[in-house]
């Protein structure tokens, strides 16, 4: 029997860019309304997942070292066969011995990750689980999917705790499967295309399957303590299917705001819809300063709210009922973030998605990603580590190339995780860069809050506002795709004030929290000569 699982916190990752549906369609002689979200050139499914997961951990007040594992669902892992899970887990600061899994193969993978984490906790194999669902869908150029596919990520921290204090619990689930082809990407294809007739899919696949699984969930919910499921957070490939579903099931479509702001977020859709529902459920005074502390509710909710997640992909539909009894940390500010994002044109969106590239020969990186230098360097780059001198306190970065302290020449060095925020000591903005680099390209020398000094790439969107002493925070981004392999590292983003203005030219680079992620427990084992 399944037992209820506590939901401790949530987090979200929203891409930086937006494209108008009308602009996309106009390139092919059509029309349309609305917008979709597009990852910037240095964002992808993994960086969005990192953002969502980092924020969820901070909101839960949990150190990554305490996690039992990472359960990650994405229809497009950045490496189709490769260390996607290991990279994300390392970047989040999970211990190397932790578990979890990567689920892929369709937009249903987010629900699979959620249910699998639930199963692991219920079986006693995990006590605290991090669930992430993310996607940056790549539509076929000139296909209908181009006006639908978006990007986004959501994360949840689940726990075995049965304490009544948990603000929400997963209480019931249902699933159904039918062998049909709808959205499809073959093993050798680059982009996703729709292989189905839209009306066939709607009438014969999506509505029947999801209605069935939604009804099954509604039947199971009361026995689990949820009188009714009032809100639905659903997959919504074309932006109309979700409302059609909710007309059959009754209740409200809480994922509508997500769909209209971001487009189809694939695996993330149901979980992002949940975040939207959780934020609106904790209504109250919006004057709270931190995005991680929801405002005190001035309603006393006597009955729990029931939210139903329904995800669809690859012929499978799954639903999970969430009982909400209080504000869930990490959800506040989600609606505000949805409203941000920098508008770009169709051509720029193709460029940043890698579908329109200059036909010049890129010069390769000094060392290829498969080299021993990366084996030595991956952990220290993904976890952002330095070597702190026991004698003088100077932090030398990165550890593997510093056998001696840059301050005093000492050899008693200890590997430490670095702070994730600081101030600009000095900087430069490259305004002329040859491909594959793109100008403007800021490089920022940062004095981190823990006293370490570091130079990292900055955000092009910050080029005009950077100056000495600007406060910055560090976020994981994709530095390069080198010989087909992504290379991830931290970049510096100006910490701007929260704004409530609408979409336009405000950068979404201030998404998520500015708080530091605690990379606590140090790795044991060999780290080279620098670890003492």
């Amino acid at each position: 029997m399944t037992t209820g699982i506590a939901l401790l916190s949530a987090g979200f990752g929203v891409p930086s860019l937006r494209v108008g549906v009308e602009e996309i369609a106009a390139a092919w002689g059509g029309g349309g309304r609305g917008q979709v979200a597009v990852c910037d050139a240095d964002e992808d499914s993994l960086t969005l997942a990192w953002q969502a997961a980092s924020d969820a951990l901070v909101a839960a007040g949990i150190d990554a070292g305490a996690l039992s594992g990472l359960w990650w669902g994405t229809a497009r892992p950045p490496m189709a066969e490769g260390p996607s899970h290991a990279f994300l887990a390392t970047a989040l600061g999970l211990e190397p011995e932790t578990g979890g899994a990567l689920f892929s193969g369709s937009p249903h993978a987010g629900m699979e990750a959620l249910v699998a984490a639930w199963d692991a906790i219920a079986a006693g194999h995990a006590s605290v689980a991090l669930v992430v669902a993310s996607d940056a869908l790549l539509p076929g150029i000139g296909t209908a999917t181009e006006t639908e596919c978006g990007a986004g990520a959501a994360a949840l921290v689940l726990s075995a705790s049965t304490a009544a204090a948990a603000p929400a619990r997963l209480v019931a689930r249902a699933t159904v499967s039918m062998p049909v082809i709808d959205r499809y990407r073959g093993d050798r294809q680059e982009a996703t295309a729709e292989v189905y007739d839209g009306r066939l899919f709607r009438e014969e696949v999506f509505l029947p399957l999801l209605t069935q699984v939604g009804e099954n969930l509604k039947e199971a919910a009361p026995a689990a303590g949820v009188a009714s499921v009032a809100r639905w957070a659903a997959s919504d490939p074309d932006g109309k299917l979700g409302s059609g579903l909710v007309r059959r099931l009754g209740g409200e479509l809480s994922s509508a705001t997500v769909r209209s702001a971001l487009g189809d977020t694939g695996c993330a859709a149901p979980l992002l819809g949940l975040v939207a529902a959780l934020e609106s459920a904790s209504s109250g005074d919006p004057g709270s300063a931190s995005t991680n502390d929801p405002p005190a509710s001035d309603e006393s909710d006597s009955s729990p709210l029931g939210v139903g997640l329904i995800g669809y992909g690859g012929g499978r539909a799954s639903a999970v009922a969430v009982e909400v009894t209080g504000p869930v940390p990490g959800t506040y500010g989600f609606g505000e973030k949805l409203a941000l994002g920098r508008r770009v044109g169709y051509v720029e969106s193709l460029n940043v998605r890698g579908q329109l590239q200059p036909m010049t020969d890129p010069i390769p990186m000094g060392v290829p990603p498969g080299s021993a230098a990366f084996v030595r360097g991956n952990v220290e780059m993904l976890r952002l580590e330095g070597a702190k001198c026991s004698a003088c306190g100077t932090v030398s970065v990165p550890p593997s190339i510093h056998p001696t302290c840059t301050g005093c020449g000492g050899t008693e060095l200890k590997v430490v995780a670095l702070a994730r925020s600081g101030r600009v000591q000095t900087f430069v903005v490259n305004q002329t860069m040859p491909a594959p680099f793109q100008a403007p390209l800021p490089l920022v020398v940062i004095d981190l809050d823990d006293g370490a000094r570091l130079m990292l790439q900055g955000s092009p969107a910050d080029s005009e506002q950077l100056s000495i002493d600007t406060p910055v925070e560090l976020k994981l981004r994709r530095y390069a795709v080198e010989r087909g392999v992504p290379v991830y590292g931290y970049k510096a983003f100006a910490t701007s004030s929260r704004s409530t203005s609408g979409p336009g030219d405000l950068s979404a680079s201030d998404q998520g929290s500015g708080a530091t992620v605690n990379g606590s427990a140090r790795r044991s084992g060999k780290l080279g000569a620098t670890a003492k």
Partner: protein
Amino acid sequence: MSWNRVAVVGAGLIKFGELFEQSYEQMASGAFEAAVASVDKGFEPSAVEAAIVATQRGTLWGQEGIGGNTVPTALGLAGIPCTRVENACPSGSDAFRIGAMAVASGVHDVVLVIGVEKMRDKSSQEGLLARAAAGHPLYNRGETAPVLFAPYATRHMHEFGTTPEMLASVAVKNHHNGCLDPYAHFQNEITIEQVLASPPVCRPLRLLDCCPQTDGAAAMILTTPDRAALYTDKPVFVAGFGVATDHPYLHEKTSFVGLPATVAAAGRAFDMAGLGPADMDMAEVHDCFTITEILDVEDLGFFDKGKGGPATLEGETALDGRIPVNPSGGLLAKGHPIGATGVAQLTECYWQLREEAGDRQVAIRSGNALQHNVGGRGSGVSVVNILTRNP
């Protein structure tokens, strides 16, 4: 007393520029011929006993595997001992120092020091790109040459009020001097307004704040002071030299308004020469970017820290100024064929001290000239050589 254990008896170079029609070997040969022809009493090429070659960017610029043998065989000196030196932008000046030590050691009596650099066999974009993609995958990715200095400009402006006009005045001065140097890559006058209006490269540096990518070669002939009289009655002596190193990453710097490698190298050179900044009649310094010259003249002790900008703007480093800097036109106008640069700067010092610099001759009162380069990752290598005509 200055060290003075080595004498320079010949110096020559080829015109710097985009020398598409000349191969690396042809450029080397041209510089050698010029140096040989410059020797007052004549010089037999076969008198060269050993050579030190400075070529910095062999692999990135398409010259694979430049070793010690490429140059001697091109000069008709196959068989002689030869070593290629690479020490970033100071490669040429370091080759000179090593050649001087070879003579002073007594192992070789006549040493050829020759710098050769072919930068334009690849497109200038490729050259820039290779620099940006080399190095650590994250911690200096995108670090082109101007990125090494632009953050110093930003910080220097912040701490001392240095202005873009002060930076521009370096370029204006050096372009003016370059017009008087027949070997310079660029021989055109420019104005401060033109510098400030040139395309932005790397804030706050603009195109005319940056040196060009240049092909070039320069050569000098060194011997002992005793043997110098065989070749010339006006030798120039090596009074002293210094080399210093500093950390290669910008994030390892503790100050962004000066270059510790320059300060240390200069200190060692002055000590060895028994001289100080006030004893110099002129200086050829590393002006890869306008800000770099301002840092240099402060780090070398010619002006107090922070005063380099106003001093340049007010003409104190002009040909007729208190301390003429870069009478040759500097890297900005003469060009920066990396391995050849230091050697070319030394040829300028040689001609100036012999009062053969024509229209760009500066007043020689003390008889001493300073030559300086700084460069490499994090501007972490500097070499200073001091020449004197006083025996």
